[in-house]
């Protein structure tokens, strides 16, 4: 176990792009989905519709668990699991957080290459975003417990590149 504020934990979060976010539904069923996140002032922020399944689950059960793989650093033999408490907020996150999202997912050199290569889909993406269920919202997530877990073989081999493991 480690404290969420541990420098090793914070460094691993900086190396991670996607969080696997697991929540519990009102009828006690598991749900998990990959989501973008950014860290800001000790919290993690995730944009999502206020009526998305993740947001509805958090509204009922604020405890959630997240898994990070540190994919920016390439291969890793471990993942980071955070146990957290989350709250659903209406509207977009603070501008600071929006800037972090833009820098991380849209404006990095590789992100720009992906964006420009798919510029013919920008309009349909805009329509997709306009469909957001319940209107724009975000989760403010406060980590409570951090733990590094060993990564089983194929995922470890494939993070950051294809290994050909079958």
């Amino acid at each position, binding site marked *: 176990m480690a404290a969420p504020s541990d420098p090793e934990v914070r460094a691993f979060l900086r190396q991670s792009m996607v969080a696997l976010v697991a929540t519990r539904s009102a009828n*006690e069923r598991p749900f998990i989905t*990959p989501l973008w996140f950014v860290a800001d002032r000790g919290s993690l922020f995730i944009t999502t519709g206020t009526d998305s399944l993740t947001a509805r689950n958090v509204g009922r059960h604020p405890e959630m*668990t997240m898994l990070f793989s540190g994919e920016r650093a390439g291969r890793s033999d471990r993942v980071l699991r955070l146990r957290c408490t989350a709250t659903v907020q209406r509207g977009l996150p603070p501008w600071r957080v929006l800037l972090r999202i833009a820098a991380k997912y849209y404006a990095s050199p590789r992100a720009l290459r992906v964006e420009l290569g798919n510029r013919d889909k920008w309009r349909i993406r805009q329509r997709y975003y306009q*469909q957001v269920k319940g209107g724009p919202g975000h989760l403010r997530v406060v980590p409570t417990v951090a733990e590094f877990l060993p990564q*089983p*073989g*194929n995922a470890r081999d*494939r*993070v950051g590149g294809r*290994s050909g493991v079958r």
Partner: protein
Amino acid sequence: MNVQARGVTRDVDPSSLQDLLDHPPRATIAFVDREHVDVWPVRARCGADMYRFGVRPEVAADLENREVVLVIDDGPYFFELRGISVRGLAKRIDRAEPGETEVLAWYVIEPRRILAWNYAAMREG
């Protein structure tokens, strides 16, 4: 991410993600354990409508007959995001997967719901 599509959808047929299933870049399992939702990284093997996963036995709870959700996903940037989610009951497999060198506890999922998405394939639904 995580918007519910009506007019525009990124949902695809799982068979269109065969390369992802053949070579899972990242595989994660979620389940509810004593009123907490838990997640573990797993090793996934998929093929012929069979979804199997292996967890390290010393770190995982017994998942026999539990409802689990397996997510195999890829891609950090918007138009690279794709994945598959398999919800179902986990059943223990006694034998090890062929070619495996790591000792893992293997399960097969009896699927109840399978979803697949590919943001590069976004289109009017």
